[in-house]
């Protein structure tokens, strides 16, 4: 596309694999028999349960309250009875506290929160409170509580708001379909965020492999007058916020700092739409678009899913498994979480369910590093993954810190290009843990 931009350093080009679902409109998923709603679907302290076994709940009712500032509430996605409140399987791999709801099928909802009269001009504190009360977290997958991200310290002034519509992960088309089918909600969500910072103009970055999304958004953007759609070249990880900021504004977030340090705030398009829902209709975040795809399912689809729906139910809605699955990933193939069972719930940050058949999974035990340097070339943050790995395996933690271990965004580009199957991201994640322990004085 003429004028499409991209970030300067590194990046890789995995096969897009989006054709399986890019053209399929989002379908509502019928409710399952039970929902397992984890109390931790976000970065920060898990929510404290507000219900107990036997309680009856309505859709939209708060079933978990936040603990502290960096935390988020959790709501019942539909009506039913609480079967138990105890640890249950979770996408992270180990059991986490969750509220299991026996769905009664009525989908009865309680009173929504009061819609805002003037969402764009409302009192910022009231808007932030509403965002927190609605349990909105980063829906690009990071699940950072949105109200915290939108509350930078007063010393830092924000002059740029960017919506992330890049969806650079292969296979995933959830954000794509949202932008095509509900561009208005996305743009209006941007408007609410701009209102928080008193800004008049914001950007939406979209990779050029989504021309229909770009077109739909541009129409709404023109009508709104405060949004500009920025087409982006297709390169992974274009949707990483530091890369997105650099592409659109030219500013580079310094090492160890957050985007707010360069006056920028980035939000996923899904999060923006959720903000609009919360502010204009008073609904909390209890559902999202999930792409169920991969050659391991018979009929890949984009589904509108209630949080807490077991993944097995979603796979069944897509024609079931096609043969023996090799890998089941929640999220995309670059940064998603591998699962060992389908009996795990979709949560607020679940953008996709990717089932790869046995034949498609190509792994091998780690081989020795051959110093080819591909990982260094690929790293969008300008790090040397092979050096970081060598340092941490030699227990040189302070040196790993000096070599920028904490700047790694865990995008997976290095592991993707490594010809020796070296587990680079895992080694660097391990290094990060050791570096943080060292910094704390451990």
């Amino acid at each position, binding site marked *: 596309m003429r004028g499409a931009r991209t970030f300067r350093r590194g990046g890789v080009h995995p096969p897009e694999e989006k054709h399986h679902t890019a053209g399929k409109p989002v379908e509502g998923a019928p409710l399952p028999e039970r929902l397992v709603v984890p109390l931790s679907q976000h970065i920060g302290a898990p929510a404290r349960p507000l219900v107990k076994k036997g309680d009856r709940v309505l859709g939209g009712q708060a079933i978990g309250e936040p603990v502290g500032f960096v935390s988020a509430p959790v709501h019942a996605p539909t009506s039913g009875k609480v079967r138990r409140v105890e640890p249950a399987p979770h996408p992270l791999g180990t059991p986490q506290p969750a509220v299991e709801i026996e769905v009664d099928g009525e989908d009865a909802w309680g009173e929504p929160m009061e819609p805002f009269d003037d969402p764009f001009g409302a009192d910022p504190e009231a808007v932030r409170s509403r965002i927190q009360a609605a349990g909105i977290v980063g829906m690009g997958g990071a699940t950072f509580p949105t109200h915290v991200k939108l509350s930078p310290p007063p010393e830092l002034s924000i002059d740029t708001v960017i919506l992330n519509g890049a969806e650079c992960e292969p296979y995933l088309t959830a954000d794509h379909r949202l932008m095509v089918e509900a561009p208005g909600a996305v743009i209006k969500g941007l408007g609410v965020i701009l209102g928080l910072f008193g800004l008049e103009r914001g950007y939406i970055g979209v990779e050029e492999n989504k021309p229909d999304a770009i077109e739909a958004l541009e129409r709404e953007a023109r009508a709104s007058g405060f949004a500009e759609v920025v087409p982006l070249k297709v390169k992974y990880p274009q949707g990483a916020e530091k890369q997105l900021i650099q592409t659109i504004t030219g500013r580079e977030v310094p090492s160890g700092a957050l985007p707010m340090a360069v006056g920028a705030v980035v939000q996923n398009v899904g999060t923006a739409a959720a903000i609009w829902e919360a502010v204009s209709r008073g609904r909390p975040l209890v559902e999202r678009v999930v792409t169920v795809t991969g050659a391991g399912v018979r009929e890949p689809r984009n589904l509108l899913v209630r949080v807490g729906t077991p993944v097995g139910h979603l796979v069944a809605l897509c024609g079931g498994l096609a043969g023996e699955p090799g890998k089941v990933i929640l999220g995309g193939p670059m940064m998603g979480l591998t699962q060992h069972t389908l009996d795990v719930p979709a949560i607020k940050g679940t953008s996709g369910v990717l089932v790869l058949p046995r034949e498609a999974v190509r792994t091998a035990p780690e081989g*020795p590093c051959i110093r080819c340097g591909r990982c260094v070339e690929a790293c969008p943050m300008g790090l040397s993954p092979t*050096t970081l790995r*060598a*340092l941490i*395996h*030699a227990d*040189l933690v302070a040196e790993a810190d000096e070599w920028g271990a904490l700047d790694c965004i865990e995008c997976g580009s290095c592991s993707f290009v490594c010809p020796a199957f070296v587990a680079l991201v895992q080694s660097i994640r391990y290094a990060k843990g050791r570096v943080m322990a060292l910094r704390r004085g451990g």
Partner: protein
Amino acid sequence: MAELGLLFVSSVLVNNFVLSRFLGICPFLGVSKRTETAVGMSLAVLFVMTVSSVVTWFIQRLVLGPLGLEYLQTIAFILVIAALVQLVEMVVQYTSPALHQALGIFLPLITTNCAVLGLAVLNVQKGHSFVQTVVFSVGAALGFGLALVLFSGIRERVAVADVPRPFQGTAIALVTAGLLSLAFMGFAGLVK
């Protein structure tokens, strides 16, 4: 003047004391694991080599020669070197206890470093003048330091590499030293 320049280049690169003459291997392997200790040792050796060669030159020319006591050369030189090393050790311990700790036993071992005695003897054998002695000695010491620092840089990288079991430790160090020595042979034609 040009002749002195050639003498200097020869002692630093072409006939590097460590990599061509194979003198001073003990501290070369002993303190080259980290660049900090390598630099510290190089400075200590620079001081000892330069001062000892000047002092021994005087002793040879003014005392041993005229009195016909050339046969006392080895003992006399060692005495001078030992005293200088002792002095250096005192100064290092005073100024940087950390470096003194890091260098450990290798500091007093400079006394027995064949590079230092070798330098003193070579100066006599080649019949260098005073100026020539100074230039040659500084070059030798710098060459020693160069070899040490280069080697320590490589060793720091080898320390985090996946070295096969039979080669770990001293073995890979010696192989690397050999390769570095081969590399320095490339300077062979530099000075006629």
